[in-house]
C-alpha cells in the first residue's frame, strides 16, 4: 500500500514508542527535476525498516544509511545529493535533479 505523509509520521511515533531507534528524513530543498516535493518524509528504524520516500528510490539507500548513523550518534544532519555532488556518481539522481535532506533522530 502506498504510504502517505500521515502514515509516515504516525509510524515514526508508533515505532519510537515500541522502543525502536527511529530517524526521520525530510526533503528540505530541491532543484531541477527532483522526484519528491519539499516536505516529503522517510522514516527509518534501527533495523533498516523504512516507510515513505524522499527521492522516488534513487538515493533512498544512502538516506537510510545516514538515518542509521543518526540513530546511532543521536545527531541531526543535512545531506545533499545531485549531479554537482561527488557522491552523485555513486548513488546519483538519474533525473538530473538535486535534493537536500534533513535527517534527525527521534528522541
Amino acid at each position, binding site marked *: 500500500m502506498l504510504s502517505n505523509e500521515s502514515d509516515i*509520521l504516525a509510524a515514526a511515533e508508533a515505532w519510537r514508542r515500541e522502543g525502536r531507534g527511529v530517524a526521520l528524513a525530510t526533503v528540505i530543498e530541491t532543484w531541477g527535476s527532483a522526484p519528491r516535493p519539499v*516536505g516529503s518524509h522517510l522514516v527509518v528504524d534501527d533495523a533498516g525498516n523504512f516507510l515513505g520516500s524522499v527521492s522516488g528510490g534513487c538515493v533512498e539507500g544512502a538516506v537510510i544509511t545516514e538515518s542509521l548513523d543518526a540513530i546511532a550518534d543521536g545527531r541531526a544532519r543535512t545531506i545533499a545529493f545531485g549531479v554537482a555532488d561527488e557522491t552523485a556518481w555513486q548513488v546519483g539522481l538519474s533525473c538530473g535533479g538535486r535534493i537536500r535532506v534533513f535527517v534527525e533522530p527521534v528522541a
Partner: protein
Amino acid sequence: MQIEILATLNAERAARRAAILVTDLEGGAQRVVREAELAADPLADLLARHLASGQSGLVEAGGRTLFLTVQAPPVRLVVIGAVHISQALCPMARALDLAVTVIDPRTAFATPERFPGIDLVAHWPDDAFAGPVAPLDHYCAVAALTHDPKIDDPALAAALRAECFYVGALGSRKTHAARVARLAGAGFGEAAIGRIAAPIGLDIGAVSPAEIAVSILAQIVAAQRAPRTGAPK
C-alpha cells in the same frame, strides 16, 4: 525530534487542525505552532503565507535558516445536490485533490450511474451530517446547488455554524435575497450570512454546467489560498 513534538503533530493531524513544525537547521531546535497559536507567533506573517499555500520550505528569519513543515488537513468539498452542474463539478474537484461528497435526498438524482466513483449520500443534509458524512469543519467547502431551500438551507446553516472556509449557493440575486431573509430569521447574523458566495462562482460569464463548475472551483481555490493569520473561530 522529540517524541512529544511528533505526538503533537500527529494529534493535530488526527483532529484535522493545521500545524507548522519550525526546525532550526543549524541547532536542530524545533517547535510546533498550532493554527490557533499562529496569529500570536513572532513569525506570524511568514507562517500564514506558508499555511495558505500549503507549501513546506526553507525560510530565513532573524539570521537563522529555518525549515517549515506545513501540515494542513486535506480539504473536503461537500456538494449539496446531485444535479447537472455537480456532474461536471465532481471530476474537476477530484483533479484538484479535493475529497468530494455529494449529498442529495432525491434518489432519482443521487445515482452511481450519474456519479461514478463519487461518494454519494442519499440523505437529507442534517441526517447526512449526523451519520454517514464526517462533520463539517474549517477545512470544508460547501456548495449548495439544488435550488431547493428545503435541501440547501439546512446545509448552508450547518456550513456557517462549522465555519467552513467556503460556502457557496446557487441561485439568482432574487433567490439569494429570499435565502438571506430565511437565514436571518433562523438567527444568523449579517457577517455569517455575508460569507455565503452568492450567486455562486467567480463572475466569468459561465454558461454551461462545466463552465459554472470552473467558476465555482476557481472561487474555492481563491478562498483556500488566501493567507489567513487567525485560527478559525
